[in-house]
């Protein structure tokens, strides 16, 4: 439920209303907009009588929110959320370019790629340390050592770093990581989401391979309900009957999410198509669809990559793509 308050509402009257709602186990959040003040209600509002609220002198109007997600809902927060990662901003017109290898393999590899992508305009370096692989015999990542190498690359290049967490006991290792990624397979690991909600680090939440948009938003709600509102959503392809690509990159989810949530939306074309040649067109399509950023796999030696080499593009291709993305952003802003 959303309560739109009258202009310059009397603070005492607002407090009284909040106190009454608190007595019904409903928490409130005040969102100061440009022209109006909105009070968002979270909890079981089915017992709240709309007419009673509407008859209050401080209240302009009341609207029930049908959707099960509240904090993530755009009705709660009209303007785009801008997530700050140090001096890098994501969302609300700030475009973020994230690039790097699927996994961190060695110091030389990660620092080399970091330098390349930084030179091409990426602001954030990606690299898996803990790898959720389909096969237990496949490369599982350098784990703690991988994070140490990412931190070295961060110091060397000034790039922010993002890497995936697989379970909550790993959290202490993420101290110097700038954005924690929750992978597609963990999107509905609710205990993990709740724990991440207790920290204030930005969380990049990937859509599960068989999850709906609403399920993605409900997972974001899990993190936000614990107090961490720094959530970035990521579309990375969903499983369909089509086998020509690794997944089907659901770009239609970008405008849908942009209308339903205020959270930034990032697209991962690399996992979305799984084939390096298609990364470029789908990257540009994602920008045109309204994405707030891209996360692209870049490898200096894709043929010998320990993970997902097929979908990784080389640094020179990334440089050319990055320039094209910037051109496209300028055209779209006109």
């Amino acid at each position, binding site marked *: 439920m959303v309560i739109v308050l009258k*202009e310059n509402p009397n603070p005492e009257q607002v407090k*009284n209303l909040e106190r009454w709602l608190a007595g019904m186990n409903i928490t409130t959040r005040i969102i100061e907009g440009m022209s109006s003040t909105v009070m968002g209600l979270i909890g079981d509002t089915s017992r709240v009588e709309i*007419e*009673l609220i509407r008859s*209050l002198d401080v209240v302009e109007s009341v609207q029930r929110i049908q959707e099960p997600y509240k904090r993530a809902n755009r009705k709660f927060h009209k303007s785009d959320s801008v997530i700050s990662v140090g001096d890098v901003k994501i969302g609300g017109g700030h475009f973020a370019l994230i690039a790097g290898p699927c996994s961190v393999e060695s110091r030389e590899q990660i620092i080399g790629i970091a330098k390349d992508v930084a030179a091409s305009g990426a602001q954030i370096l990606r690299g898996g340390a803990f790898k959720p692989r389909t096969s237990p015999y496949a490369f599982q990542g350098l784990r703690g050592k991988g994070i140490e190498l990412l931190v070295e690359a961060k110091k060397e290049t000034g790039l922010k770093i993002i890497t995936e967490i697989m379970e909550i006991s790993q959290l202490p290792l993420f101290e110097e990581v700038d954005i924690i990624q929750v992978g597609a397979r963990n999107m509905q690991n609710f205990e993990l989401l709740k724990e991440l909600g207790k920290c204030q680090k930005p969380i990049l939440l990937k859509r599960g391979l068989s999850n709906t948009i609403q399920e993605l938003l409900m997972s974001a709600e899990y993190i936000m309900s614990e107090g961490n509102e720094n959530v970035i959503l990521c579309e990375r392809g969903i499983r369909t009957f089509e086998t020509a690509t690794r997944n089907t990159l659901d770009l239609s989810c970008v405008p849908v999410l942009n209308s339903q949530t205020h959270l930034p939306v990032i697209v991962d074309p690399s996992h979305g198509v799984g084939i390096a040649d298609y990364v470029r067109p789908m990257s540009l399509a994602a920008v045109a669809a309204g994405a707030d950023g891209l996360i692209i796999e870049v490898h200096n030696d894709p043929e010998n990559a320990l993970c997902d080499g097929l979908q990784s593009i080389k640094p020179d291709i990334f440089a050319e793509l990055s320039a094209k993305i910037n051109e496209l952003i300028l055209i779209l802003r006109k």
Partner: protein
Amino acid sequence: MKVNNKYTTFPQSATIACQGTQGAYSQFACEATFQKPNIMYFENFNAVFNAVDKGMCEYGILPIENSLHGSVSEILDLMSKYNFYIVRSAKLKINHSLLANHGVISPQIKEIYSHEQALAQCSEFIGNLKNIKIVEFSNTAAAARMVSESGRRDIAAIANPRCAQLYNLSAISGDIQNNANNYTKFICISKDLQVYDNANLISMAFSVAHKQGALYEFLSKFAERGINLTKIESRPIPGKDFEYMFYTEMEASINNPEIPTLISHLEEAPESFKFLGNYSQLTVDN
């Protein structure tokens, strides 16, 4: 009749529902009734009853009668609809002022906004002004707020002079009511019957059959016991063909053992009868 006191003495602080907004006469009545009221404002009288009914507020403060213009009939009707009780009353002196934005002078004013009762109470003052359009508003203080927020220099509101400071307005004229002795009686209502110390007034509502001497017979029960009737008035019962509900107030207390017995008898009688409370009244020269 079952007394269900929530407190041993009348509470000093509680969450109270009032109609209007800050600066309404209800606020002053409320502040006179409670030492530390926590007031929530509602847009109309029905909402005040509803807020008490739903437990959002513990009590409600409502105007019931004005010394110049009689009862606020809507409140009487709502009292029957909700089956609430009066736990206290306050007689508040009403002083009206004409308020406008700073620097505005009387000849500039083309429209005056206020509550219909306030407009009626100042009819002589308004009658002396030329070419003025009168606009009824939900509440005197809400009218003052509207004048302030509009920034307009051709309108004014009739409200309590305290609204001038509250809404950044100037008082063009003060004490503009027709009669200096202008009082409004407010009642404090609750869902349960609560009777506190020094309660010396009883209110009740009843109807009697259309037959000779029915009303006389009813009232004689009180007269026989030496009880002074301080008010009686009638309201048509909605949906009935000129049948009436009578509202009375009398000087009595349920501490007099005869009274509860009498009330029990009346409650069992075939005609409709409703005990509306036993309370004390305070007078406030605002």
